[in-house]
């Protein structure tokens, strides 16, 4: 749901969502057709499958100034490509542990299964992440190591 009225200069988090085309992207479409409101701070990047999501994308997103990242796809057993999400999940388990240990707050990185019929869930997942990131504030740690360099790529 929309949050309370915004004060001027309130921190507005930037959230990137890596989603699969068949489940979560379509789930987000359903949230649209059902007119379920959610906070606008999220930008979806559509990929064919969670299997396509290279964990390095997540690092890239933080490098480029994202305050939070959502990774979402089809429920286990429902993958349009049969097993892409199983492979993805295995990578996430390893990757998540590494990021957690290295100090990327788990409030900034959420994983979810959102099917094409879960428009409502999509909005809940997104709002939950945005609220948590909002509470955690800007990703200062990354900003700090970021600010000196402007790299063209």
């Amino acid at each position, binding site marked *: 749901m929309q949050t309370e009225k915004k004060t001027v200069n309130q921190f507005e988090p930037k959230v990137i969502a890596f989603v699969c085309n068949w489940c979560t992207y379509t789930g987000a479409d359903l949230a649209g057709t059902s007119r379920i409101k959610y906070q606008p701070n999220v930008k979806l990047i559509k990929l064919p499958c969670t299997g396509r999501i290279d964990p390095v994308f997540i690092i890239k997103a933080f490098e480029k100034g994202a305050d939070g990242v959502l990774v979402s796809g089809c429920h286990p057993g429902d993958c349009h490509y049969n097993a892409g999400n199983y492979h993805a999940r295995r990578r996430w388990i*390893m*990757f998540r542990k590494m990021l957690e240990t*290295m100090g990327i707050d788990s409030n900034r990185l*959420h994983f*979810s299964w959102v099917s094409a019929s879960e428009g409502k869930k999509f909005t809940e*997942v997104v709002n*939950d992440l945005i609220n948590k990131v909002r509470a955690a504030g800007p990703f200062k740690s*990354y900003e700090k190591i970021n600010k000196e360099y402007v790299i063209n790529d």
Partner: protein
Amino acid sequence: MTELKNLVKSLLEEGKVTKVIGYRMYGENNTKPYIAVTPNDAEEMVLNTDCRNNLSVYLTKKEIINGGKTGIVAKGCDIRNIIALIQENRIKEEDILIISAECKGVGAEKGSAVYANKCVNCSVKTPHLYHELVEMKGSELSQPKDKYTEAKEKVLAMNSGERFEYFSNMFSECIKCYACRQACPMCYCEQCIADMSIPRWIESSATDRGNLSWNMIRAFHLSGRCTGCNECERACPAEIPLSFINKLMYDTAKEEFNYESGMNKETPTLIGSYNTKDNDNFIQ
């Protein structure tokens, strides 16, 4: 049990192998890698508690592997890399001949009285894949301080901000020389993504941000593959304790999937296989 020199000599004489990758002495209490090509070269060969290098790194070099069957002197820990390379189609078992020994552990560094860290809790002192067995020379060493557990406890006691600070500081020492990559037997790509420019995966200059990304990506690409030989850390001129994050990933693989790399060549690799019952509890 055959003597190493005699064994290498006869292997080369009989043409069973075209070369043997091994060690030779390099000053006192130190060795360096050595490739014996002629039977006479065998005289230089040694295997003792100063043989710290992981020689399996040479097995992925085209010049070595394409030139006929290769003999290699390998401790149990090195054999794990050989197995991992077999699992990843880098080498074929029939192309190599493993000469191994019951390992006494290797010294932490030149003249050291304690084991190297990698020898702590080693489960492969008795080699698990070999073709010839020889004897390992050298005196008994004592247990070193367990630096890993200490470091892990320290990190786990920090909050996420402190951890980030800790690691970005640690990696800020990196000079992007990629010695870690060169020393690693598992880093064998034709072209590393660190060198890729379109698109740019990792900043080429040694910025804090690029250093952090490089070290994260390196550790991630090695997850489920690193056997913990610590050659990266030994090679690092900036003395970054690279083994910490490697070991962390190693432990995660073991806890989550009961997977240890380089133990069994028949096991499917960790990344590349899946179980429908893999842990789901972190996914909303």
